[in-house]
């Protein structure tokens, strides 16, 4: 065993090291490239950009006041003035869709942030500390999962009087369990990795290890779950609003715009009224699912780390 090469003068060492390192690719560029390969995901991302963009810009691009009623113009078919027709009170459906999108997306995003925050924290603490803490938190998760969600939602919303913030809180409270289990699983494997042990041997605090060392590596699945969750919340809000228990009129959401499609006359005579909100829900949830699937493949650690 001769003296190792690395004790040679620096110039030679540099060459050798440069050779072995090869082309430089950052983690992000690998992920982006992988994501862009998935055509459905890219389609979803473009759709979402348009949907979110138009919802945000609603006050400027909506052709009419969404709440302005014109009973003479009830259930008017799509025309030059009302591109997507009018509803049973003569309101412009396009404008209501744009404004309704803001509410639906807002509910989806905020509920997702709430659910992911609770779920990540609970899952991280349970997975990292293990033992009794883990057992207690996971039984709590089991209990919450066992609630019959839709009935509980209906009851809670009925008791609490429906409002946007209560709706979001109920959604977040009932939906953090999936993320918690996911994050716990990630932590169970990651906490045994040697870089975590190394952090412990330098005396790093548990809080810093959990949030600074392990969590960044566990975020991949969480981001995927969060993306899919937004779509799920939009659906849930639509369902509740459809039943009249969600966001109350005159505020429009995609869900409560569908409420009136329950009436057979409207369904028969004004196809545009239920169709467009339905299509918006479908497109949005579908796009979120496509993007979620794309992210799942792109963030797969087996792809990134090698």
């Amino acid at each position, binding site marked *: 065993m001769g003296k190792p090469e690395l004790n040679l003068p620096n110039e030679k060492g540099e060459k050798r090291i440069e050779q072995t390192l090869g082309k430089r690719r950052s983690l992000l560029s690998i992920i982006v490239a992988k994501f862009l390969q998935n055509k459905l995901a890219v389609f979803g991302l473009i759709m979402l950009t348009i949907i979110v963009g138009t919802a945000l810009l609603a006050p400027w691009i909506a052709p009419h006041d969404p709440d302005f009623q014109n009973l003479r113009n009830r259930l008017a078919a799509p025309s030059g003035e009302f591109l997507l027709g009018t509803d049973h009170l003569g309101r412009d459906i396009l404008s209501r869709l744009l404004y309704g999108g803001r509410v639906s997306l807002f509910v989806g995003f905020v509920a997702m942030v709430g659910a992911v925050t609770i779920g990540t924290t609970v899952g991280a603490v349970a997975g990292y500390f293990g033992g009794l803490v883990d057992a207690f938190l996971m039984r709590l998760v089991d209990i919450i999962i066992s609630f019959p969600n839709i009935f509980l939602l209906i009851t809670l919303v009925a008791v609490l009087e429906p409002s946007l913030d209560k709706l979001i809180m109920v959604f977040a409270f009932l939906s953090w369990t999936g993320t918690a289990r996911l994050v716990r699983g990630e932590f169970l494997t990651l906490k045994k*990795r040697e870089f975590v042990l190394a952090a412990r041997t330098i005396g790093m605090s548990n809080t810093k290890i959990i949030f600074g060392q392990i969590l960044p*590596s566990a975020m991949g699945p969480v981001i995927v779950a969060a993306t899919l969750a937004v779509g799920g919340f939009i659906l849930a809000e639509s369902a509740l609003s459809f039943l009249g228990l969600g966001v109350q009129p005159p505020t429009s959401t995609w869900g409560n715009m569908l409420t009136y499609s329950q009436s057979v006359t409207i369904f028969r005579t004004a196809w545009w009224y239920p169709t467009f909100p339905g299509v918006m829900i479908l497109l949005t949830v579908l796009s979120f699912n496509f993007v979620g699937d794309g992210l799942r493949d792109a963030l797969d650690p087996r792809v990134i780390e090698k």
Partner: protein
Amino acid sequence: MSTATLNDSKTNNDAKSDILLEVNGLKKYFPVKSGILQKTVGHVKAVDDVSFFIKKGETFGLVGESGCGKSTAGRSIIRLYEPTDGQILFDGEDISYLKEKQLKPYRKDIQMVFQDPFSSLNPRKTVGTILEEPFRVHNLYTKAERKERVEHLLDRVGLMPQLRDRYPHEFSGGQRQRIGIARALTLNPKLIIGDEPVSALDVSIQSQVLNIMNDLQEEFGLTYLFIAHDLSVVKHISDRIGVMYLGRMMEVTDKRTLYKNPMHPYTQALLSAIPKSHPSEVKRERIILKGDVPSPSNPPKGCVFHTRCPQAMDHCKEIVPTLKELEPGHFVACHLYE
């Protein structure tokens, strides 16, 4: 007791201040739980009554088959595990049962180099961040000083300082292991525990890393606890060697004595398994051990090695042999020498 003999020996041979680490009767049992109520149904005796000491500036090699508890011993010493019983004296201070907060000053003094260079560096952080973390945890130095130190460390382990902005996945196994060594050095430790630091590397890279470790030991006056299963690696780097089997220490002595005059039948069998490195070497007779290593959750009674020992006697099955000093500095736990 083995403890007593150990203590006697070192007061005879060396001044007490020469000892950096002393392990007395260390035990680490992992509970085996089952059922909904997580009742403890048994224990895996990973480390069972292990004693040894390491002098300042020396390299102590800890060898044994996989699963013999050598890594568990190392992790207990650095207090990644809570010892079940026994005593860990570092520089004369008992650190075996300190709480994490009281332990923090000692965290600077004992560091570890890990086995798997692919999992020992956080994949989401740059090398610079990884190497600065110890400073941040202990609030040492200013930003500029940290940067300078990190670059110096990288240079010391043979990597260009410019590489501080790169991520671990951009390095090869050997380079990552050198980064791991640099991290262990950041806090100027007294003792570095190498937990199979070269086992995952190619043979050519192994010698590089071993040589770096040797150079650094001279430069910084480091003491090493070197855990390995590869006898030729241990022979290359160690001053004294401890041989473990199934959670127990079988033999402890200096390198030359161990390779020339192994006394424990297990050590003899291990050494006979080293392939010849040169054709002119005298062919050793291979001692083939029969059977498998018993489960550490249900170790044999008496001497744990008696199930496979070619020279086992009747009372080996009943009485646990203690580690005794047979010659100055040569400790053996075997009934053959009583």
